[in-house]
């Protein structure tokens, strides 16, 4: 019974930790499938996290925060698209420029507006954060036998964004593989000339893809500052954007495998927080340092050993021009 409880709680934590990764990885997926490198998701997420916390703190509404987060991330996406698609700039440079700009601008604006050393105020008012959604009978089910706890902890009790992230995986897969837009999106990342020959605008498709990634990053950033924690702090994305990109590559630019990779990364992270100080049979207490390194070690091992060949979209990173 004890181990059953531990496993359920571990899976619930995995879901919470995976949420921003899933959203960011899907954002990367759309952008990269259209042929635009998605390094900018880190910056878009961070910008959204700041905007969401700032607006939620001043307006008192998490929903307005979400709107602001999505708006800022989309604006940043527009900037990237303008530099990379319209002006055919170097995609890595443009994305890194956005990341660095946001990393400095967020804390600077927070300092000027709130005078709290680059943080936003703590969000503790009612409605300032996305709270847990309790499913019907969840409280009663907690005490019930077998599927009870599973229902109460794993399915119920997360916030809306977690459910949204999970729902977006099949939706993205459907958009990519079952719609005309998806077909064109995949084509433009492989062979933009063919798409152009068919009379479809490459520029327009890539803009759409990057803007979609902006919206998704906006939701991911909002999750970080108004759902997972309560307020914005400096560098709060802490490399989650890059981790999401790794998950996307690990998932071979496909929605379901990418989702799996995000869950795996999140699982190792959740496991690491729970293994601390736990006595294992034979080994005794495992040193903290070793446990904290576990997610990274596992990531390297998996990426090096099991991913096989990851084939990127053929036209990725190449600005499209008609003449060539």
């Amino acid at each position, binding site marked *: 019974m004890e181990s059953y*409880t*531990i496993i359920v*709680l571990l899976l619930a*934590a995995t879901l*919470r*930790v995976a949420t921003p990764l899933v959203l960011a990885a899907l954002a990367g997926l759309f952008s990269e499938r259209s042929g635009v490198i998605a390094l900018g998701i880190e910056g878009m997420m961070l910008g959204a996290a700041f905007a969401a916390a700032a607006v939620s703190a001043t307006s008192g509404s998490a929903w307005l925060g979400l709107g602001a987060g999505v708006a800022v991330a989309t604006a940043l996406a527009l900037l990237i698209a303008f530099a990379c698609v319209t002006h055919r700039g170097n995609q890595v440079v443009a994305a890194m420029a956005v990341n660095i700009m946001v990393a400095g601008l967020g804390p600077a604006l927070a300092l*000027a*507006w709130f*005078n*709290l*050393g*680059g*943080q936003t105020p*703590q969000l*503790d008012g009612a409605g300032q954060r996305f*709270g*847990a959604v309790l499913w019907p009978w969840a409280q009663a089910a907690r005490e019930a036998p077998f599927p009870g706890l599973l229902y109460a*902890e794993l399915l119920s009790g997360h916030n809306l964004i977690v459910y949204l992230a999970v729902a977006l995986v099949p939706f993205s897969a459907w958009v990519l593989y079952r719609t005309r837009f998806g077909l064109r999106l995949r084509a433009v990342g492989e062979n933009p000339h063919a798409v152009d020959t068919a009379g479809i605008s490459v520029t327009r498709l890539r803009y759409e893809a990057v803007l979609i990634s902006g919206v998704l990053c906006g939701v991911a950033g909002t999750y*970080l500052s108004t759902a*997972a*924690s*309560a*307020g914005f*702090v*400096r*560098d*709060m994305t*802490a490399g989650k954007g890059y981790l999401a990109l790794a998950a996307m590559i690990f998932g071979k630019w496909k929605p379901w495998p990418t989702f799996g990779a995000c869950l795996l990364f999140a699982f190792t992270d*959740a496991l690491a*927080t*729970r293994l*601390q*100080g736990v006595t294992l049979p034979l080994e005794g207490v495992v040193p*903290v*340092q070793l446990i*904290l390194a576990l997610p990274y070690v596992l990531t390297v091992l998996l990426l090096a050993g099991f991913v096989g060949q990851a084939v990127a979209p053929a036209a990725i990173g190449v600005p499209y021009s008609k003449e060539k």
Partner: protein
Amino acid sequence: MNFRHLGRTWLIMLAATAATFAKEFQPAIVYDFGGKFDRSFNQSASEGAAKFSKETGIAFREFEITNAAQREQIMAQLAKRGSDIIVAIGFTQASAVEKVAKQFPAVKFTVVDAVVDLPNVQSINFREQESSYLCGMAAALATRTGKIGFVGGMDIPLIRKFALGYVEGARHVKPGIEVIQNMTGTTPAAWADSTRGAELAKSQFGRGVDVVFHAAGATGLGVMQAATDAGLLSIGCDSNQDYLHPGSVLTSALKRVDVAVYKAFQNARNGTWKAGRLELGLAEDGVDYSYDEFNRRILTPAMKQRLDEAKAEIVGGKIKVSEYQAE
């Protein structure tokens, strides 16, 4: 809209530079990771400096570290620009203080939470195990499940010191109590990761913990938030954090960094500042537990009485709180 505000900050900074020419007393303070507004350790230091400045009208210079390479640079710069005393907050400043203090033997240095043996350095340390002991007792008195938790920041001897005192205090009340301990990380980033703090706290709640004590700087904000969200109790650290979530913060392990900073500034100004080691515990009012209008409802008079008795016994030497020894 607030750009005017920003402009004013610049003016103040300019004024501070101008003051260099008229040789007045010039104190400076360098904060550690987590920043001046961590509502905990660094904030307490900044309150001490602000109090000094308010009482004397003397402006002080301050700097927030955002990457490790800045420590030495900024300290050397402050010393070069004529600071009379530089207070360095946090154990990670020790090596930087040692280097810079050697270069500028005429400048006074005070380092908090570390020991640097030089003729112009004052090392202030706290007996955190004593306040942690009282918090451990409070947790053991308040728990319903018989399981309490501890979330540390960076895994260093100082934080182990908190943990050890906490466990001893809890065992003093309930010998068989289970204490689940977590450390956030092994780098200074572990002081500022509130998302991870919340996740660690949730994992402990899942294992039956209902009171959690943090010694994790800004990471602890996440721990306390998670406790409030779950309707459970947390214990604050360093600053009095009872006001953050009234009714959910059982008490706070106070560490009067503010008093240390204030006294260092004041003594340096009066000429009574002395180099050497200084250790502050319950007896010197360097550490304590908090009791105010925010936790009065949850820290019952019966609990308070037990804590005050134990406090007197620690001061009187009847209870010996053991100190964590790093191998």
